[in-house]
């Protein structure tokens, strides 16, 4: 019988998701620190992508934001105090978004909001698989990012390749390659979610690594986005989401979970 197991998460998927999320937070911290965000807050640099709704805060608050990010990143990478780490990361990302808007900060924030709805700490459970609707939401978020990215690109003429040709890191590319390259990006953005939802999920992850490594090389400073997408993609590696009914067990008569 057809079944969509979007909510079922294995411990292995959870562990990889948290590790990659921790890496994404670390990448965000390092990108900010080495690209000169400090000098934005001292007033030397242009307030890049700053939303005028919130005033720019002092370097003291920026140091606090970075300390929270660093602590959350290390905790998620090491598997220590993951509950606290997810709360701290959400706070740090909310602070950061009030200072500079970017797609990668928004995506990381959304994923953290969803993760915080019901925190599942792998070390605190004996279950091999958990049913977590909020992780279904994270999986759907990946499908929405790819789906709307393709729609936005198609409706704004990305397929001509002109946008790729304007990126400074790709100025050396022959103009003849731009259109095929643009179509390849669109094809991968359609293919990856389809593969991730199928029994070929590992191929989906491999293509996602290829695509987002390419993005990160072409556009400086967006490695956080790549890592966040890989963290979400890791939630598809395991039992297929479509076509396989959830695992069932026959309980022992005294099982406290024999509630049906």
């Amino acid at each position: 019988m057809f079944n969509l197991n979007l909510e079922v998460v294995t411990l292995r998927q959870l562990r990889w998701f948290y590790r990659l999320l921790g890496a994404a937070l670390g990448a965000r911290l390092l990108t900010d620190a080495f690209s000169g965000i400090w000098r934005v807050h001292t007033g030397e640099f242009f307030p890049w992508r700053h939303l005028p709704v919130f005033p720019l805060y002092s370097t003291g608050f920026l140091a606090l934001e970075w300390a929270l990010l660093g602590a959350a990143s290390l905790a998620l990478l090491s598997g220590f105090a993951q509950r606290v780490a997810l709360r701290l990361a959400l706070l740090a990302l909310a602070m950061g978004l009030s200072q500079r808007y970017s797609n990668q900060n928004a995506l990381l924030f959304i994923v953290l909001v969803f993760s915080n709805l019901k925190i599942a700490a792998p070390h605190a459970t004996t279950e091999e698989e958990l049913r977590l609707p909020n992780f279904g939401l994270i999986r759907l978020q990946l499908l929405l990012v790819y789906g709307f990215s393709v729609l936005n690109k198609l409706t704004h003429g990305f397929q001509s390749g002109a946008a790729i040709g304007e990126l400074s890191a790709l100025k050396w590319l022959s103009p003849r390659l731009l259109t095929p390259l643009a179509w390849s990006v669109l094809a991968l953005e359609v293919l990856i979610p389809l593969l991730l939802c199928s029994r070929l999920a590992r191929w989906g992850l491999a293509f996602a690594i290829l695509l987002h490594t390419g993005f990160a090389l072409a556009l400086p400073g967006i490695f956080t986005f790549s890592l966040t997408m890989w963290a979400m993609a890791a939630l598809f590696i395991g039992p297929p989401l479509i076509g396989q009914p959830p695992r069932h067990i026959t309980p022992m008569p005294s099982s406290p979970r024999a509630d049906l």
Partner: protein
Amino acid sequence: MLSTGVVSAYPKPSPRLRSLCRALLFLNLAYLSAALFTDALPGWKMFETVEHVEYVLNNSRGEPVDVHSVLPRSANLIDKAQLRRVVAFICEHQPGPFWFQEAGQRGRWLRRGSCGADVQP
């Protein structure tokens, strides 16, 4: 009472959490659909369009000024409106006046105090 049926191995999620997730999914979809047709709204529009940004910015001694000198290294300048805001920032914070010309536009002098207005074509 003992159950003899087949039972799911997973703990049941709370109905409240499931309803919240459904509401968030609906909001997400509604917002992204609106952003698809509204250029000003951010959506998943990763570099779908990148404008050709070509300019000349010189200081009062005629020396070229690079706008990237006041931008974080991770900044990708992809449209003319962004360029003008950065040029206006340089004009307000560094000794001027500045000569600014964009590709296909007439050049103009930018002076501190009116940089925001002077920078517009």
